[in-house]
């Protein structure tokens, strides 16, 4: 076996080990160590991704001496590879871009705890992406839940503590439902690894009497994971959670954590249930309706908010709605549009959440719209990057947001039938609403104000992550066809 196949294992073990290591280190050393490790991981996963592209197929990796139905296993294919690379890039940008705020927001004696949590979160994200075992998925979902509460609560404002408690209660409810679903599936199949489980489920699904139980199990898993990722009507925790966390945490939570849950859900649909069995269940149409509901509800709430971070958080709720709408449309076009949108949103939302605190910095530390007037003139860099990300969210061509909206439209045409008109209407209305609140914000930050002092250019800790994210954004926008082809091959290899 080629040595390069060990990379996921090494990355997970090293990240798990780095948690306790940062627990011992001082804050500054932990920070430097974190940046170095993230860069190493990015390099490693780039190599792995190139390797997977070259062989053009997925491989499984036995975790220990015992093969498939008895021992744990991880799997690396095109989808896992591309997602892991993107997640690590965004994670690096968030941690590096938010590091100056980490020092401001977090007490000196707790900075090393923050970086320890980041490493454990990296391990959890990677394990969730690569797992080929349902229960491993659950264990690392637990770690992800706890670490996300940790990086939220570390700011120690009354409001973040309250948000973290609410976030934790909802997330534990989601984890509980997910575990219940896993237990039901295990009782019916006697397996926990995805491949043998899928074979037994395929046999079971031939019997119409087993279908209701099976649907129930998948339904519970879907509800659990959609609560955790913030699908309408469970999106009300988002504004407080994303709005008041330290910027690095807000960016990680909105662009990575919620996406990891969706990716796991999609993996379960493809590799545990099997797309053919899944498409016989009524779950898809429910997802479609809730997705459209999320798009509209998120956009309307975003328009009504007077706080830029709360607006961005509500816009996240709408974007999560898009992703679930793609899953609900089904078919290769729908699934690939959903996965493409996961990538687009991860890149764009992290850029927004890292930029808004910079705009606030030159506006007396306030995130309220009326204080932000003219902030784009006072901090030119932040203004430009905010504009790029906001235009991408609205869906202006050559930026990534445009391509994903186009793909949703195409997926709806492909699916045809009853879904076509509501999806098209939702796309049209939400694009208009998006434009309304994002363009309004852009105009607001460029409207002249009596405060005219201009801030000098930012240091590399802001510019490098922003340039990286903008480059990713343009890449996804310009080469959307190639990326989509890649995702489709990945989905094909998946199930």
């Amino acid at each position, binding site marked *: *076996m080629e040595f390069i*196949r*060990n990379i996921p*294992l*090494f990355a997970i*073990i090293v990240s*798990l*080990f780095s*948690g*306790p290591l940062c*627990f*011992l280190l001082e804050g500054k050393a932990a920070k430097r160590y974190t940046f170095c490790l993230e860069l190493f991981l990015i390099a490693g996963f780039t190599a792995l991704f190139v390797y997977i592209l070259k062989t053009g197929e997925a491989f499984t*990796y*036995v*975790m*220990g*001496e*015992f093969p498939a*139905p*008895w*021992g*744990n296993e991880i799997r690396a294919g095109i989808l896992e590879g591309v997602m892991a690379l993107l997640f690590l890039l965004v994670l690096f940008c968030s941690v590096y871009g938010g590091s100056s705020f980490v020092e401001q927001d977090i*007490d*000196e*004696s*707790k900075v090393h*705890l*923050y970086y*320890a*949590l980041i490493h*454990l979160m990296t391990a959890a994200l990677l*394990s969730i992406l690569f797992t080929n*075992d349902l*229960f*491993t998925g659950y*264990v*690392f979902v637990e*770690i992800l839940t*706890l670490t996300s509460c*940790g990086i939220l*609560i*570390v700011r*120690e404002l009354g409001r973040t503590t309250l948000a973290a408690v609410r976030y934790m209660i909802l997330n534990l409810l989601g984890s509980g439902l997910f575990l*219940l679903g896993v237990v*039901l599936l295990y*009782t*019916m*199949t*006697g*397996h*926990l690894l995805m491949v*043998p489980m899928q074979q*037994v489920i395929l*046999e*079971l699904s031939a019997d119409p009497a*087993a279908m*209701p*139980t099976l649907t*129930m*199990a998948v339904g519970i898993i879907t509800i659990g994971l959609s609560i955790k990722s913030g699908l309408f009507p469970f999106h009300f925790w988002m504004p407080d959670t994303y709005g008041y966390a330290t910027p690095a945490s807000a960016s990680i939570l909105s662009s990575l954590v919620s996406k990891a849950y969706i990716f796991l859900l999609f993996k379960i649909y493809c590799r545990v249930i099997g797309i053919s069995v899944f498409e016989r269940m009524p779950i898809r149409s429910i997802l479609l309706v809730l997705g459209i509901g999320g798009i509209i509800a998120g956009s309307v709430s975003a328009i009504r908010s007077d706080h830029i971070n709360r607006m961005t958080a509500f816009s996240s709720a709408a974007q999560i709605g898009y992703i679930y709408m793609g899953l609900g449309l089904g078919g290769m076009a729908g699934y690939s549009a959903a996965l493409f949108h996961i990538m687009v949103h991860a890149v764009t939302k992290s850029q927004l959440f890292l930029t808004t605190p910079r705009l606030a910095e030159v506006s007396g530390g306030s995130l309220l719209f009326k204080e932000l007037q003219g902030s784009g003139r006072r901090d030119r860099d932040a203004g430009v990057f905010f504009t790029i990300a906001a235009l991408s969210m609205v869906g202006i061509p050559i930026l990534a947001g445009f391509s994903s909206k186009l793909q949703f439209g195409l997926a709806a045409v492909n699916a045809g039938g009853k879904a076509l008109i509501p999806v098209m209407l939702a796309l049209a209305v939400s694009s208009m609403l998006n434009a309304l609140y994002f363009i309004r914000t852009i105009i607001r930050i460029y409207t002249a104000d009596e405060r005219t002092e201009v801030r000098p250019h930012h240091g590399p800790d802001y510019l490098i992550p922003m340039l990286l994210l903008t480059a990713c954004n343009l890449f996804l926008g310009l080469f959307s066809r190639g990326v989509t082809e890649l995702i489709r091959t990945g989905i094909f290899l998946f199930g």
Partner: protein
Amino acid sequence: MSDKLQRILEGDVELLENVSDAAEVPDSPREELKQQRKEFVSRVYQRSEMERIARAEKKSFLLLYRMVAVVSCLLLIGVLLFTVANIPRYGEENPRTLEVVRRYVEQGLQETGALNIVSGMILDYRAFDTLGESHVLFTALLCVMTLLLLDKKTIRGGALDDYHRVRQDTYFDLSKDAVIRLLGTVLVPSILLFGVYVILNGQNGPGGGFSGGAIIGAGFILFATAFGFEQADRVLSRKVLSRIVFCSLAFYSFAKGYVFFTGANGLENHIPKGTPGAILSGGLILPLDIAVGLVVACTMYGFYSLFKRGNIGGDRTSSGQ
């Protein structure tokens, strides 16, 4: 004059004094004052009426909320019961469901070298899950520390004063209590010894790192309660605790990483299985159990210490005071 009334309305604690102040103002005619008082009373009345309505609305909302909650819970219970009633009987209708379990039971002893099948399963067959699980505890410790550890911010908020006030109150200081001290003297050594036994015996009988570690942690909590944190800090300061946790988890990660690496690459891992039933048996299970046990014990004691005094071990924030 209406300005004054407005102010009275806003700070209605000093209501009477203010109104009598108004009465002393010489140029206010008596009629006008009467009128103002009347107006004032009616506005106060209106306000309390509005509050009453709001309370009633809140009450009816709460009632509705509770009713919806109860109905949806009942619905969920019904659906889940229906689902459970329809599950095919375990292992009877589909023999493939027993494939995994059968191998664990029949070949577990010779493949893992552990008499206790559960230990063999969680630490050998499905070791990756357990690797994650032991880090869940550590993550929980980190989260509780971020929340409860006293730092400059919380000390400025007065948390330390509260802590010292509570500490000076002998009612809460159980280490002055003769009964608890005596019981601690008797119980702590035996609890700790029992915990060690449970950990060391994990591969041969019921027990293992998680349960044994919990017992040791409980013993240590009793020790800290009976003899005070000053004594406990001499044994387990923050530095010692974090080093123990680090060494255990690092050992765990690398030992298992080594086994995963050799297993996946088809290499020999050179870990002797030992004779089943002896203490030194089951390959890596015993050392892993010890590592897990240490992490669990430290985590439990850490939780107790953080919740009780916002600190682990004596260090700068509390001893400096």
